[in-house]
């Protein structure tokens, strides 16, 4: 089979009151990688849903290799040659790589053809992996693989169906940098198979090595497709947002003298050891490191979310001996969790409820609580943090990632904290929302609050923080005192443990 051709004509999806995708027409050629960009709410997820058969387009046509398709569900889309790899993994952890890839279509043998032919299964999957240049043993259990390797297996599984069109929905959002590189290598190798690849991402820096074209959506419409050579960051950002300016840390944010948080000799077995640092009033402190370096674990330990084995934590002059979330909250510590969907929000509760979650006792009066007490709180944070909502009583899961993150932040700011931990607050949200999160951190700093900011995006740390600590294998191995004068390569090298400054 030659290169595939995906031809989309006037694709439109209308939800009551909103056009989620407006008259999308484009041709995607096989053997090419298209990076699909657009801020949250620009119509990307609707585009994916329409192509994957999860949603039925209101009007428009999808042609694959000159054949008009008609999807009633995901199975039809699969049969027509469209495979989708989602951000959330769908693998069964206790099954092997081969079992996962062949699930539901095992080769059989023996009397009545009811016995699974493991030999053929494994050999077949080995062929698939080899052809994609993936070097993972087929008999390894998924639970023994890293998140990055799992994502690669997910792609191999999709490719095992011999699709003509492959949609990758933010496959790198949970990966560390070195894992991203090996995933991108797999995507590059897919080109040779003549498949049309649509790669959805938020990260501008990673499309450069992999994409041939950049396709941009804005406000439910296709803005255009440009070759990668032409697509400078300026061009892309202008296509995504119209004209914008990206801000960096304002000069007036000064680190005070007063020590707000003093951590000394903190340790937890197999997670981190010998952790000591000071955090001053008004300071924005970054913590850099690879996935698994122990950054989140450290913050969670200080916050009281996980137990610690020893060491001292002094917050606002008070020593917290055995931190619990409630105790640390009382002392003025707040933390937005890395995993906002599962650990920061209660998806089926309203935006209003989620904004009051950490301050229920304060919002309530003598244990009584009502909508009339909660509504002003919700209104306040929706206004201050510019959370885009049509109705504060809607379930929080109806919001986009960036707005959900702001709800988490508002929930914690309402506890009137002195120190705020942000654990990966920018994961999976668009550039404008990121800028707003940075702005929130800077505003806190200006008011004399202290911020600890953990991010896997090293550029962000350099842009936002006064000072960056580098963590590797549970220890601090270095420090960047002048982020504004430090090139990204230096920080990256430090995180890889190459040189400690």
């Amino acid at each position, binding site marked *: 089979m030659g290169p595939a051709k995906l031809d989309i004509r006037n694709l439109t999806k209308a*939800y*009551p*009151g*909103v056009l*989620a995708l407006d008259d999308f027409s484009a041709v995607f050629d096989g053997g090419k990688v298209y990076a699909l960009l657009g801020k*949250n*709410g*620009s*119509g990307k*997820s*609707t585009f994916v*849903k329409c192509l994957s058969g999860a949603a039925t387009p209101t009007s428009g046509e999808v042609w694959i290799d000159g054949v008009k398709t008609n999807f009633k569900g995901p199975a039809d889309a699969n049969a027509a040659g469209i495979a989708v790899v989602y951000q959330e993994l769908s693998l069964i952890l206790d099954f092997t790589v081969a079992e996962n890839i062949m699930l539901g279509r095992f080769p059989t043998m023996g009397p009545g053809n009811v016995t699974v032919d493991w030999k053929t299964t494994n050999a077949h999957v080995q062929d698939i992996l080899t052809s994609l240049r993936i070097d993972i043993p087929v008999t390894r259990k998924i639970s023994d693989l890293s998140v990055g390797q799992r994502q690669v297996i997910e792609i191999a599984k999709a490719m095992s169906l011999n699709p003509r069109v492959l949609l990758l929905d933010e496959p790198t959002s949970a990966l560390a940098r070195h894992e991203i590189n090996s995933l991108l290598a797999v995507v590059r190798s897919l080109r040779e198979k003549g498949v049309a690849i649509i790669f959805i991402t938020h990260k501008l820096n990673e499309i450069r090595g992999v994409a041939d074209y950049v396709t941009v959506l804005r406000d*439910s419409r296709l803005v255009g497709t440009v070759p990668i050579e032409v697509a400078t960051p300026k061009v892309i950002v202008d296509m995504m947002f119209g004209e914008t300016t990206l801000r960096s840390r304002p000069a007036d944010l000064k680190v005070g003298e007063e020590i707000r948080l003093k951590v000394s000799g903190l340790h937890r077995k197999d997670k981190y050891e010998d952790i000591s640092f000071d955090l001053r009033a008004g300071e924005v402190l970054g913590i850099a490191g690879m996935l698994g370096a122990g950054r989140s674990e450290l913050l969670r330990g200080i916050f009281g*979310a996980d137990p610690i084995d020893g060491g001292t934590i002094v917050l606002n002059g008070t020593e917290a001996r055995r931190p619990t*979330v*409630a105790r640390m*909250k009382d002392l003025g510590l707040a*933390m937005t*969790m890395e995993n906002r969907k*599962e*650990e*920061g*929000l*209660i*998806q*089926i*509760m309203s935006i209003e*409820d989620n904004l*009051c*979650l*950490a301050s*229920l*006792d304060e919002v*309530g009066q003598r*244990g*009584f*609580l*009502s909508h009339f007490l909660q509504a002003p709180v919700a209104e306040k944070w929706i206004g201050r943090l*510019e959370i*885009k*909502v*049509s*109705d*504060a*009583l*809607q*379930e929080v*899961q*109806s*919001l*986009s*990632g960036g*707005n959900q993150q702001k709800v988490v932040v508002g*929930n914690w700011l309402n506890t009137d904290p002195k120190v705020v931990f942000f654990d990966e607050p920018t994961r999976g949200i668009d550039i404008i929302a990121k800028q707003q999160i940075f702005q929130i951190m800077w505003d806190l700093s200006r008011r004399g609050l202290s911020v600890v900011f953990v991010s896997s995006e090293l550029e962000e740390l350099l842009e936002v923080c006064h000072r960056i600590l580098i963590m590797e294998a549970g220890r601090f191995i270095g420090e960047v005192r002048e982020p504004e004068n430090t090139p990204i390569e230096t920080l990256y090298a430090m995180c890889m443990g190459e040189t400690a400054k």
Partner: protein
Amino acid sequence: MTTSNTSGRTKRTLGAPLPRRPFFKLSDFVLEAILLAIIVLLAFSAPGFATWDNWMNILRNAAMTGIIAFGMTFVLILGEIDISVGSGLAFFGCLLAVVTDSMTTAGWSAEFAVAVGVVLCIAIAILAGMFTGWVRHALAVPTFITTLAWMAAFRGGAYLLTGSFPVTPYPEWFFFFGSGAIFGIPFQAFVFLLVFIITWFISRYTVFGKSAYAVGGNAESARLSGINVLGVRMAVMAMIGIFTVLSAIMVSSQIQAGNPTVGVTWEFTVITACVIGGVSLMGGKGRVWGTFVGVLFLSIMLNGMTLLNIDEYWQYVARALLILGAVLIYQVQALNARRG
């Protein structure tokens, strides 16, 4: 309520006034509408349905399971379950009877003996509930398992206490709780309404109520927001225990004895009422008002069918259809809301 994930649907510009939500939507009151229709239907078809006495009878019967159902609503909102309430009903009834019996035999006054028995029952119910909540929290033992054990323990305890024969130690005044009336309205109906109002208020207007929804919606997020998850779990499991004791007192009073055979399959009647009322077994969702309507729905249906001389076995079939029908309606509504 929309639950779509398409983030592009909220396009309100900042500062524009929030749209007003409709004050009344018929689709929010499907259950109430059906119940009203059934009442009208029965009033015309079932002899003796639309009489004061029959209505008081319905209330009297609804009260016994209904009180427990309000406790069960909170248990289900937490995402837990308590299948020991039927056995608990028998156990607490028998314990009260045995305590009263032995104390009056020993020369104490009946008033004092009943008071001691009630306090003892409530103490045991609270401790048992707190234990269930603690085991759930600290050791992640499903409440289904723990209360399965309580179910056996309570039933066995009831038989052991009484030697499997009803114990009848009660003086005349005690029968008021089960058969008495104030202004012609049965005593149980007042307790039923009181418990309804208290639990309805807790669910809507207290920090504790909101915490229960939060724990049921996502216990980890609740914990990381500093909510006392263990406290909420223990309190809710203790609360249903207290309501079970209240119900046990009224049942004992009505049958004028402590009887180890009462309350068999009550846990399912109670859960049925909650489910009809739209309480989700997945946790995080449910309204005390829904349970109130669910309890009445079930009692009125059973009462109506008895008056229409419908065979008891067919009543089981009707109950099955009721549960399935209710669940299907709620599920279709939820899916429609999600699709938007």
